[in-house]
């Protein structure tokens, strides 16, 4: 027995900690998913009659589901994560977590999150959660990411599902308002990601990921960023125009989206690498604030 154990100890077992597994869940992405999912839940009719613990379990399911998809994404992308500066310190390329363990962890949590959502809330929300996870893993991660510059345009849909899931968790169906919230995140994703890829372009080139900045160049990407932020503006005003939100929301959305458009124009106007990086970083930071602020306005105003 002792000899067996000592032999096992000699094996190359990664020194993984609980925090490594937590990092596998992409906590920053998860926070955005939880927030937008909660916003969808908050504005859904009947939220105030929902048991608080059930609402909390729904949020937990959403968070775990998003984290699980992130873990499977890290398992699949471990080869390119090791090449890119931005991702090389993730647990798998660092050798802290065995890839097979990461995949198992992701699959188990994914199934668990869908089951929990179904049991606690309803199977419509659970079905959308399952679809969003499969879309992120199969369509975005395994298919689009390495094959087309439209990767984050189409793949961005996966990140747009949380408000729909939150809404469906309360009502059991999907109506126009959650579709508008979906559209807001869907149109927000390309300029958000392209701002990132402008200052991480060398990373993407090295990893041979066909981001728009790599295949079409910075100039064309910047034009696309302006186009998407322009289209985004009226979509963010739709909740007010259709009577779901009041005028104050319309004003706030107009200001926030206007500033987002200005940041895209500033990125377009920057013409040397130093200002390019600076403006792209400013836009990326603002894009995160923008989405939080916009959904906060949807919830509170």
């Amino acid at each position: 027995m002792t000899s067996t154990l000592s032999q096992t100890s000699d094996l190359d077992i990664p020194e993984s900690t609980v925090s490594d597994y937590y990092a596998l869940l992409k906590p920053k992405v998860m926070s955005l998913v939880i927030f937008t999912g909660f916003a969808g839940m908050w504005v859904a009719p009947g939220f105030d009659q929902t048991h608080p613990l059930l609402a909390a379990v729904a949020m937990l399911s959403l968070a775990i589901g998003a984290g699980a998809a992130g873990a499977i994404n890290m398992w699949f992308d471990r080869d390119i994560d090791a090449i890119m500066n931005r991702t090389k310190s993730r647990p798998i390329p660092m050798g802290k977590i065995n890839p097979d363990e990461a995949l198992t962890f992701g699959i188990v949590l994914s199934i668990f999150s869908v089951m929990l959502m179904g049991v606690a809330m309803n199977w419509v929300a659970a079905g959308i959660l399952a679809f969003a996870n499969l879309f992120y893993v199969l369509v975005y991660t395994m298919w689009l990411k390495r094959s087309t510059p439209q990767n984050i345009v189409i793949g961005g849909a996966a990140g747009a599902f949380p408000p729909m899931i939150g809404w469906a968790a309360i009502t059991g169906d999907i109506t126009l308002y959650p579709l508008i919230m979906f559209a807001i995140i869907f149109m927000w994703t390309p300029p958000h990601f392209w701002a990132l890829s402008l200052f991480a372009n060398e990373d993407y080139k090295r990893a041979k990921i066909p981001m728009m900045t790599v295949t079409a160049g910075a100039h064309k990407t910047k034009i696309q960023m302006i186009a998407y932020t322009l289209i985004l503006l009226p979509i963010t005003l739709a909740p007010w125009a259709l009577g779901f939100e009041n005028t104050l929301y319309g004003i706030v959305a107009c200001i926030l989206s206007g500033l987002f458009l200005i940041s895209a124009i500033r990125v377009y106007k920057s013409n040397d690498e130093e200002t390019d990086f600076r403006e792209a970083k400013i836009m990326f930071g603002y894009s995160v604030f923008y989405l939080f602020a916009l959904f906060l306005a949807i919830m509170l105003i």
Partner: protein
Amino acid sequence: MPHSDLHKEKRKKNLAVLAMIGAFIAIIWAVTMIRIAGAS
């Protein structure tokens, strides 16, 4: 059962897994109780 170095190394992780299983049981129990009580 003798405790090897491997047991010590994995202690924190195993306790975390135990806590997760415990939390899972607690959540399912709580959800079931609320559902039985008829809350939406």
